[in-house]
């Protein structure tokens, strides 16, 4: 089946909700993440809990399969709130929405809110908000 067409982030209105995405972050994926960032804390393996930023990064990566970022887009801010630890290998459900959208001086600022819930739980384990700055068509980011 063909992959769904991706929409441009800057064309999404405030309030847009992405379709829910089911995720499972495996031990191998956590190991690859930890290796990439150079995080050798042993706690991830010893207690079987994932680094929360690994989950948030994977969630953002999953959203990037649904939307396209204009060339020159920058990540300008990040919030992360952990309400529960995420066991490695847990089945997760990601929901996301455009919580903020403003435009000025040739730039569009988007706030993407994410909630990551462990299967079987009522409340999200992780909340995240990413602030993204993109150029409008025909403009470029300031140097």
């Amino acid at each position, binding site marked *: 089946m063909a992959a769904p067409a991706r929409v441009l982030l800057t064309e999404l209105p405030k309030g847009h909700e992405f379709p829910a995405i089911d995720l499972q972050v495996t031990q191998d994926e956590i190991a690859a993440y930890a290796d990439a*960032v*150079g995080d050798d804390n042993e706690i991830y393996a010893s207690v079987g*809990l994932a680094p929360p930023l690994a989950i948030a990064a994977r969630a953002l990566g999953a959203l990037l399969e649904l939307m396209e*970022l204009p*060339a020159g887009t920058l990540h300008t801010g990040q*919030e992360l709130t952990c309400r*529960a630890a995420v066991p490695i290998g847990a089945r997760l459900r990601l929901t996301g929405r455009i919580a903020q959208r403003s435009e000025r001086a040739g730039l569009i600022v988007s706030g993407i809110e994410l909630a990551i819930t462990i299967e079987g739980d009522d409340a999200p384990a992780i909340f995240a908000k990413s602030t993204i700055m993109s150029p409008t068509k025909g403009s470029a980011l300031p140097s």
Partner: protein
Amino acid sequence: MTAPSVESVVRTITQERIGRYAEASGDHNPIHVDEAFAQATPFGGTIAHGMLVLAAISEMMTAAFGAAWLSGGRLRIRFRAPARPGDTVTASAQAQSAREDGAFRYAVECQNQAGEVLISGTAEVVAGD
């Protein structure tokens, strides 16, 4: 209550590390991984993913607070400047006053080898027993 000290974390950014992070996260934005594309941008070359640099702060807090950070940590930061291949990034935390609910609060930042602030913000955590 006095917030415990948090040890700094030092990380070297390389293009190879950026590439591995792109694979691990699924973020293949060309500003990070396409040298020809990145040279034509105002940055003049590739830059690290902000979340890759931010990982040093989470690593630092995990080392200090363990599972308490994984289950109850909170970060709020701004990306101030990019990290580039060849940069040495130091993540550090400065304790602030404890909150009334018992959470420890830190001013956190990442600087490069020139002392330029790449990330600044706050981290909060309720320490376990």
